[in-house]
């Protein structure tokens, strides 16, 4: 074993001993922040940090949803289309002027908000039905749903953006609680709740059990089918919430809302240590993945990287983060 390998081994053992195997991204996070601060001292202002957190909040909630699914060794690509479709359906039903793309129905906003969540849950339930009952491949099922919902989002309003939405509909995305955007509070609360459930509740542990060995889980008396189905529904609900928050933050519903988000969801989950083969990974790790992406985006913008090049730099740095995570002893990127 080479000296480097021994060092990695030591580092990993030490982190694992502290129960912090999932925090191997923290050094990378600090490094990128440091570079950002060198480039532009504005990086380290309270406003900018809150800004990063707020912009990451919707992505972070989607990452919770995807992590639950990935722990089961399943996959859900349709989450980003729920982010677009569920709020669009709600806003369309609220809007009174058909000439601006609305339905002309003028639905009560409270009902519309409820409907946003029902839509998310319903899409999750359909995914669950197709995956559990019909035994179809989760990849192709959720890909089809993704395309279908993207198309329906466009079709609903002929591609127009819906503005002038009631305050209650936008509340979750633009309210401030104790001076901090509500979306940050919500995301933080969800991480806390789901983190605890995954660690200390039977259902959370069942996800790990099923992802690790579904047949053994069934033999041990875990109701595998029911839990997989339920998890797809919860993921759909979370995606609907993320969509509502995103609409609130930008005060409108764009027909492309959520588009391409799923790539960043996967990038954040995987560099955060969630294994695509199921059964391994923790929410705290996934959160560091989200923060890494958020900080990176911010630093690239502040560093005045030409906007057309940002995505390329972004992709390259995600790759580097994966390699870095591997060198510090993380095994989640194993195929």
């Amino acid at each position: 074993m080479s000296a480097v390998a021994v060092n990695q081994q030591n580092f990993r053992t030490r982190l694992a001993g502290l129960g912090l195997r999932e925090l191997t991204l923290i050094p990378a996070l600090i490094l990128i922040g440091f570079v950002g601060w060198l480039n532009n001292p504005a990086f380290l202002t309270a406003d900018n940090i809150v800004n990063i957190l707020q912009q990451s909040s919707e992505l972070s909630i989607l990452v919770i949803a995807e992590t639950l699914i990935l722990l089961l060794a399943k996959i859900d690509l349709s989450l980003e289309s729920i982010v677009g479709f569920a709020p669009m359906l709600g806003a369309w039903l609220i809007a009174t002027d058909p000439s601006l793309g609305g339905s002309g129905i003028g639905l009560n906003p409270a009902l519309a908000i409820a409907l946003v969540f029902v839509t998310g849950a319903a899409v999750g339930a359909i995914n669950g039905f197709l995956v559990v009952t019909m035994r179809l491949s989760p990849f192709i099922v959720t890909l089809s749903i993704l395309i279908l919902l993207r198309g329906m989002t466009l079709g609903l309003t002929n591609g127009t953006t819906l503005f002038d939405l009631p305050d209650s509909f936008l509340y979750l995305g633009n309210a401030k609680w104790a001076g901090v955007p509500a979306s940050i509070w919500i995301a933080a609360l969800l991480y806390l709740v789901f983190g605890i459930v995954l660690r200390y509740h039977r259902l959370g542990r069942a996800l790990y059990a099923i992802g690790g060995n579904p047949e053994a889980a069934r033999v041990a008396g875990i109701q595998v089918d029911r839990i997989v189905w339920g998890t797809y529904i919860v993921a759909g609900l979370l995606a609907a919430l993320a969509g509502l928050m995103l609409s609130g933050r930008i005060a409108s519903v764009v027909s492309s809302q959520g588009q391409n988000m799923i790539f960043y969801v996967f990038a954040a989950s995987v560099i955060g240590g969630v294994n695509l083969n199921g059964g391994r990974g923790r929410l705290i790790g996934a959160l560091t993945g989200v923060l890494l992406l958020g900080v990176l985006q911010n630093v690239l913008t502040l560093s005045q990287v030409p906007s057309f090049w940002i995505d390329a730099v972004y992709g390259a740095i995600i790759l580097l983060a994966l390699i870095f995570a591997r060198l510090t002893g993380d095994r989640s990127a194993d195929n």
Partner: protein
Amino acid sequence: MQPAAVEVRHVNKLFGAVQVLHDISLKIPQGVARGLVGRNGAGKSTLVSILTGLAEPSSGSVLFGDVAAPARRTSEEWRNKVACVYQRSTLVPTMTVAENLFANAYPGSSRWVNWSRLRVEARRICEEWELGIDVDARASDLRVEQRQVVEIARALAKGSRFIIFDEPTAALESKEVARLFERIRRLKRDGVTLLYISHHLQEIYEICDSVTVLRDGRVIVPDAAVADLPKPKIVEAMVGAEIARAARPAPVLDKAATPALTVEGLNLPGVFGDISFTVAAGEQVGLAGLGGSGKEQVAEAIVGLVKPKSGEVHVAGKPLGFGNVPAAQRLGVSYVPRDRRGRGILPQLSVAENLTLTVQGTLGRFGWIAPGRMNAAARRLYDALSVVASSPRQPVVELSGGNQQKVVMGRALASSPRALVLVYPTQGVDVAAKEAIFDIVAKAQAGGTAALVVSDEVDELRNCQRVLVVFKGRIVREFAAGWNERELIAAIEGVEA
């Protein structure tokens, strides 16, 4: 004199420190059908792997027609010498019969596939051997019987004149078995040499000329004409001398009490039928039978993994709903599955979580798991079973096989079950762990748990007060305490001793 078609000379095989074959020598003359028999673990499969080039002997040699066997990893040369028909198909399911017949060695140019020529050649082989199969059919659409036929045809197409049949009838119906035997007789007439492995001794008598018996990796009978070796003699050679073992004291049973487990008229067409028995509290009953006899499915029906068509199961007098594992657990049925890696352990979870999985409900309210309570419960089991791990927090996948099995046992016992269903509970664990596992079962038994041990290993059945023998899905015999090992094995193998 004509050279032997196959000759094995002084072959030894070691896996690590374990010697599985001891100085094996045997000779099969050209055109002879030789039977190879032995109990599980006698070394048959290892010998087949060596004869087909999948494994290399640690010492000794193999010759085909007086020529040394090809070097290992020259699979093409091996396939020209020998072919093996397993229970499981080795065809590529998505390819056609014609493609499978010539897998990777298409007629004509080696780089390009000449489809018309491929079909013509394939059809010629099928006609020559009267196989009656459409060469354009996909392998996955064939029945087991047809697949075997294609495998035989493939071997012949490659010019191989030595074919090994490894339990070929396990998945066949009786009519198909008759047709297979007809084909085998034809191969014999055409001078093909055969090695035929089966648990069903009747088949050996039906189609083999001579027989070789293995036991514990040694040749017991090198070569005897079947006519000279009646069944009792074969069974004796397979079993050997009975080993005297310290018997555990038999529990005192309350005959009047409601049995812990009552099975009545359990029926699943094609798998098992008319299965009825009882197990008293504190009793240990064996359910023995060959692989494929249906005994494991009976166990799965009791624990809720398989839904039988009809019949009833009562646990301590209460009726059990079928096909529902949690419901069976609530009634007090625990299960130790056979395939530890595939169905037993939850690899990513810790030893403590694996141990307490069945009692999670008692570790906190509303499904929450209090870490303190879980660790205390796990610690009790961990100590009682003397699991060897760095700590109860270690992922269970890192443990040795024997310790993993103890963890699976511990999980089954955690809920203090009324009925414990164990399928091959000591398979693949070392001798020390084996004894430890028997001790654990005995302790549970003393506490009033009824145990049902599903196995065909005499070793695992030796603590049973009674043993029921399942043959082809029916209970055919019951042995009372003090059963005779040889008679039991004869019943399991389906022969009268």
